[in-house]
């Protein structure tokens, strides 16, 4: 999945030595890496199957350096790929051989916590969890909590519009931002949003959130902080079929309860998690649901009873409520360790990120099972059930060329299945490089052309992260064989399930 100039568009030829000379002259204090052995650690992000050694790595420490670097990159026509902590799972920070990798790790300061207003002003390299830790003394926290929250940076969260397990109730990154400071491709600094609840003009902050570093470089972020819920309770329910578990999810929502977290795991995933984390999961269940209710004590108690009744009606074979905080943490530890746990039962795994309307869950799981048999690869399913975000984990061995190929193809088929039932190829990991072909399934040529028009408004030379997020029409034509038009079911075999 290297950048392919034939399909992704030509990249300017850059004289590395001349560029290095100019950068050193104009920006003597800018930390630059240019030797092969220094560049290699940056060759991939969290999607380590894709690797490209960048031409140069720049590690700016000030806004002025970012601005000057972007001015030079624009003048010299050098592509720039921004990177935060490099934990992204879609290859959004995959470098370019002919480009600069702009690493924002040194922008690592929490600039201000305003407890009264309930806001934090932070630099993009600050870790997600560090914000909540800094806010904790004030009884506040930052709500979006992607599972990589101990390592991922808030700048990367903005670029990907990151989610987590609490999105249904507390929203995505885009719902928890007030203000962004960004540097444009030619080095201009803009403020999007404000400390007020709305801002005159177009909502460019919403447009920039999730734009994967294609429209500008985020240099400062003001996030909302929420009061930590005084009470949280977790129910762990077992089901002897995924259909029943799916029904319980729909019924909980229909009963007017919005859980703080609502997670489903299938048997393969829950057994792996149990072996790894000893969370106390029932190994004989076809699926489990973890339902966390948070808020004021009396409301939580009321909702707990309601959810319990709904789960029983939906056919839960066992329902356990965490007796204390330690058990609650243990229930969650299993879920949060699901990915590494699956990593223990297979040499490699490939994590997918499709979203579907929740009602389609049984159909999609049946479809995944059929595909799993077709490709002779096991798939473990972890599901943010409350918001319809699936993370099928495809188990394979990367040392086996054929398995790797099959895993990639199976992943693509799963995403197309998500699109076919009215869902999306990515819920929270982003398109990046990984799902660039599947974009041609979700959007038609006119829609993709419209995305290009948006890009051109901010980056007419297409220097920011080329080859990511939005495919060229050439690429879609090449993958035309897999193109699905919305509304026309591309999987006639689906009806068999």
């Amino acid at each position, binding site marked *: 999945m290297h950048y392919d100039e034939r399909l992704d568009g030509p990249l300017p030829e850059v004289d590395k030595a001349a560029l290095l000379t100019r950068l050193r002259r104009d920006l003597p204090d800018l930390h630059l890496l240019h030797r092969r052995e220094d560049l290699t650690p940056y060759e991939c992000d969290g999607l380590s199957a894709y690797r490209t050694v960048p031409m140069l790595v720049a590690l700016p420490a000030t806004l002025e350096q970012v601005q000057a670097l972007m001015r030079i990159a624009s003048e010299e026509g050098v592509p720039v790929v921004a990177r935060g902590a490099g934990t992204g799972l879609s290859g959004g920070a995959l470098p370019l051989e002919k480009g600069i990798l702009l690493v924002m790790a040194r922008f690592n300061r929490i600039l201000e916590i305003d407890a009264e207003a309930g806001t934090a002003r932070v630099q993009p390299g600050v870790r997600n969890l560090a914000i909540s830790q800094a806010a904790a003394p004030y009884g506040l926290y930052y709500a979006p909590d992607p599972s990589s929250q101990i390592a991922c940076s808030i700048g990367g969260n903005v670029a990907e519009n990151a989610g987590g397990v609490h999105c249904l109730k507390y929203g995505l990154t885009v719902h928890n931002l007030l203000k962004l400071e960004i540097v444009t491709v030619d080095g201009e600094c*803009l403020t999007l949003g404000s400390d007020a609840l709305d801002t005159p003009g177009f909502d460019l902050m919403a447009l920039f959130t999730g734009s994967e570093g294609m429209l500008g470089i985020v240099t400062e972020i003001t996030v909302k902080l929420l009061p930590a819920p005084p009470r949280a309770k977790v129910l762990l329910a077992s089901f002897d079929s995924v259909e029943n578990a799916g029904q319980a999810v729909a019924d909980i929502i229909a009963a007017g309860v919005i859980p703080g977290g609502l997670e489903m795991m299938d048997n393969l995933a829950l057994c792996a998690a149990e072996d790894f984390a000893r969370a106390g999961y029932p190994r004989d269940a076809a699926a489990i649901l973890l339902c966390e209710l948070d808020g004021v004590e009396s409301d939580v108690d009321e909702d707990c009873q309601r959810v319990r009744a709904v789960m029983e009606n939906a056919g839960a074979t066992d329902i356990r409520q965490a007796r204390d905080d330690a058990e609650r943490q243990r229930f969650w530890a299993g879920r949060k360790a699901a990915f590494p746990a699956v990593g223990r039962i297979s040499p490699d795994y490939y994590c997918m990120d499709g979203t579907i309307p929740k009602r389609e869950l049984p159909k999609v799981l049946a479809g995944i099972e059929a595909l799993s048999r077709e490709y002779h690869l096991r798939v473990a399913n972890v599901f943010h059930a409350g918001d319809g975000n699936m993370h099928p984990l495809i188990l394979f061995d990367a040392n086996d060329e054929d398995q790797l190929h099959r895993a990639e193809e199976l992943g693509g088929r799963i995403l197309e299945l998500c699109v076919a039932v009215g869902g999306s190829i990515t819920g929270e990991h982003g398109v990046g490089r990984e799902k660039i072909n599947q974009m041609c399934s979700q959007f038609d040529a006119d829609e993709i052309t419209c995305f290009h028009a948006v890009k051109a408004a901010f980056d007419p030379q297409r220097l920011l992260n080329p080859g990511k997020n939005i495919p060229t029409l050439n690429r879609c034509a090449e993958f035309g064989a897999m193109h699905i038009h919305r509304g026309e079911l591309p999987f006639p075999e689906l009806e068999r399930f």
Partner: protein
Amino acid sequence: MGDQAEALLERVRAARAEGRPLCPRGTGGKSHLGRPVDGEVLDTLGHSGVVHYDPSELVVTARAGTRVSELIATLAEQDQMLPFEPPLFGGDASVGGMVASGLAGPRRPWAGSVRDFVLGTRVITGEGQHLRFGGEVMKNVAGYDLSRLMAGSFGCLGLITEVSFKVLPRPRASRSLQLRLTGDQARDNILGWRRRGLPLSAACHGGGLLRLRLEGNQGSVEAAAREIDGEPLADEHYWDKLRDHRLPFFDGGKPLWRLSLPPATPVLELPGTLLSDWGGAQRWLKSDTDADTLRQLAASAGGSATRFSGEEPEDAPFHPLPAALLRYHQTLKARLDPERIFNPGRLYADL
């Protein structure tokens, strides 16, 4: 009634071919907002109806011409709601106008804005194409978020034909209270209650009275009401009247300004009569004071000032943008609406 997308598309294509600007219009309740546009009115009300609603998915999709009152009633049958409480100026609104204006009611600071609940849109672009962005799922980060960009764009970037929203269950319990407090006391109290997680869902101060609404489950609402210890709010329709500008405060007279300010902003010395909604983050001001003065006051507090209504037309009702930001607005408009057929100049003269 029904699907008139093809007819709307034809209108847009014809306007595009002839270079005639269009002014999309629903019920017209917000037509006084923004600058007047010299263009042909494009009535969207015929393109109406709820296309899809699945209460257990918390998602509803409706065509742009659907009456918001109808949508609210449909959701209420399932005990669900549009959490941002959209205003129904003049009695109603259309779904398209609701999204295009991005205006939200008293619950906004606690529940979120219009764009926070937009999941997907169908839009006719300046290229004369009917496109779809986002969808009917809660989480969707494929492509740029053009759906949320449409919210509050005042129809300047394309014609919204259909919108999918996230909806929420209606709270099981609701209590409204009033307390006699000064502006400063009201501010400090609201910030304290918010920090302690009290289930506030509206807070408006004016005339020495703080009016509050508590919403949630029975237990938390009762507990919060005991803690706050106010009198019951006399007018049970107060919040709807506030939302729709039907309170006596909004009657005629001096121009009405809307100041959008950071939530913890102290009481400002503002020239005129004040009604401070959203716990102080949205202040309605009736004042003859000139635009520059008011804008300076709002900007120095970190906010903005919009002239909402008044007898005399105002050439720049919206708070001006910094030059660099305006330039990017212009570029974006030029890319998405190259023939300038959608509400040219409605937001800003040069946009």
